[in-house]
């Protein structure tokens, strides 16, 4: 049974300096509010894991929280670069950032392996590319039946996983729907804790009047016994979104390009919108 906690307390209880932390959510349901809380608490030396770093890691990297990034596509979707990520990689500002760089297929398989309690994932991938040259965690295995050589990557097992979901019920079960990404896998792969921010805590997912998925949506239910802390944070995915509750703030994604392009403007924005204690009211 997870604890229902204010976000500040949930992050303080579970996220430590030096942790391997995954904030997952594939475009949809990105846990921005939790990312801001991690920045506000000044966590340092984090290894950040995420298929698509998106704005949430651009902010954490720019705020100096990260030492290392494990990822597979680091852009501002539909807009262009993540300037804070680029500045860290290209100029070491505010501090150098080590990269462990994968393809989507490999990271998705590595999440599934992590959830499955396996030490590695197998995929038909990476063949002929330069990625394994720069990433020693890409190796090969041989099929014991066909002799075929395939790629292997280590399972992802972060210390802490943080996700945003539409709902929790009072028993501590969590439900998300729409584009569900790798969040179930990331929660199950966490070694120490899984934190969930939700749009809403409801009595029961099945009760009349409670919002729910459409007929074609994917649905993921995380039973209470795999979740450690739940924080009710309406709008906690903004500028990402929560299907059924909010819509993606595409204008903010576009506006971020100019904010993040300039170090001073970025700092001013972070101070005003994230780091000042008043911002914690979100």
């Amino acid at each position, binding site marked *: 049974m997870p604890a229902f906690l204010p976000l500040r307390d949930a992050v303080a209880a579970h996220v430590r300096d030096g942790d391997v932390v995954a904030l997952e959510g594939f475009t949809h349901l990105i846990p921005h509010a939790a990312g801001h809380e991690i920045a506000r608490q000044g966590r340092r030396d984090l290894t950040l894991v995420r298929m698509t770093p998106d704005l949430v890691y651009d902010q954490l990297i720019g705020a100096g929280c990260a030492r290392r990034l494990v990822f597979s596509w680091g852009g501002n979707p539909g807009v262009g670069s*993540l300037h804070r990520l680029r500045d860290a990689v290209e100029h070491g500002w505010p501090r150098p950032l080590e990269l462990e760089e*994968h393809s989507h297929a490999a990271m998705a398989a590595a999440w599934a392996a992590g959830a499955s309690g396996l030490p590695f994932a197998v995929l038909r991938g990476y063949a002929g590319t*330069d*990625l394994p040259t720069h990433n020693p965690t890409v190796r090969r295995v041989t099929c014991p039946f066909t002799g075929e050589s395939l790629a292997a990557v280590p399972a992802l097992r972060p210390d802490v996983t943080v996700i945003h979901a539409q709902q929790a019920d009072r028993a501590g079960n969590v439900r998300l729907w729409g584009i569900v990404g790798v969040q*179930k896998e990331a929660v199950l792969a966490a070694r120490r804790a899984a934190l969930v921010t939700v749009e809403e805590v409801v009595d029961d997912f099945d009760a009349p009047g409670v919002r729910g998925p459409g007929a074609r949506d*994917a649905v993921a239910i995380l039973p209470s016994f795999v979740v450690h802390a739940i924080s009710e944070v309406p709008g906690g995915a903004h500028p990402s979104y929560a299907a059924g509750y909010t819509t993606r703030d595409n*204008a903010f994604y576009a506006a971020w390009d100019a904010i993040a392009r300039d170090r001073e403007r970025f700092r001013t924005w972070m101070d005003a919108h994230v780091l000042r204690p008043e911002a914690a009211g979100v």
Partner: protein
Amino acid sequence: MSEFSHPTPTEVLTVAAARAIRDGAVCFVGIGLPSATANLARRTHAPGAVLVYESGVIGARPDVLPLSIGDGELAERATAVVGVPEMFAYWLQGGRIDVGFLGAAQVDRFANLNSTVIGDYDRPTTRLPGAGGAPEIAAAARETIVVVRHSPRVLVERLDFVTTVGHGDGPGARARLGLTGRGPSAVITDLGVLRPDPATCELTLTGVHDGVDPDAVVRATGWPLRVATDLAFLPPPTAHELAVLRDLHARTAAAHGVAAMGA
């Protein structure tokens, strides 16, 4: 088509790429040009095209172009939505994709792609977004279509980084690497269409868009580009194609408050 302004190079490119989609084809599409391309095809000659997005959406039928690969617009009215591990394992690696669309920052003469870095990997001049789904899309889709804007900085003699294998170092390379799909069948640009030579796999200019001088395409290419002897002069966008494409962009801009930009 008197009421229409002349098509832009990007419109010419988008229409040419859309025409490459057969009706009923299962297309793995990324954001930007590939998405505009596939949605244009679905609204013109290929209403049965199945649009698959790496976010887990199968059979998307968006009314407007998504800005991101995971817009809510994509999941609504889709045939199905699945998790991302399942998308890459069962649907892409499982061999269910007919056509994969890819962009890139650099393309070489064997249609290998770079979307990782310009310059040295450890001290890059420009850090690009990285691989995303590209290496395995190019490996597993039955065929790949590459869509880029034509320039000698894009079509280069040598990639700074091989993110994605097209035809490797030439004939037989894909089989040696265990890549299951046939690889890039075309590189479509705003100047024309390059296809791998059946014997050498080297990209060869097989068609130019309406009004484009083949010599200008050669000059805009970073290697000595071969030109097919039976070079085709590709028909311009029809009034209908342009109208549908512009309507799609107009509705997209109205819906998002911003234009859906290229990836």
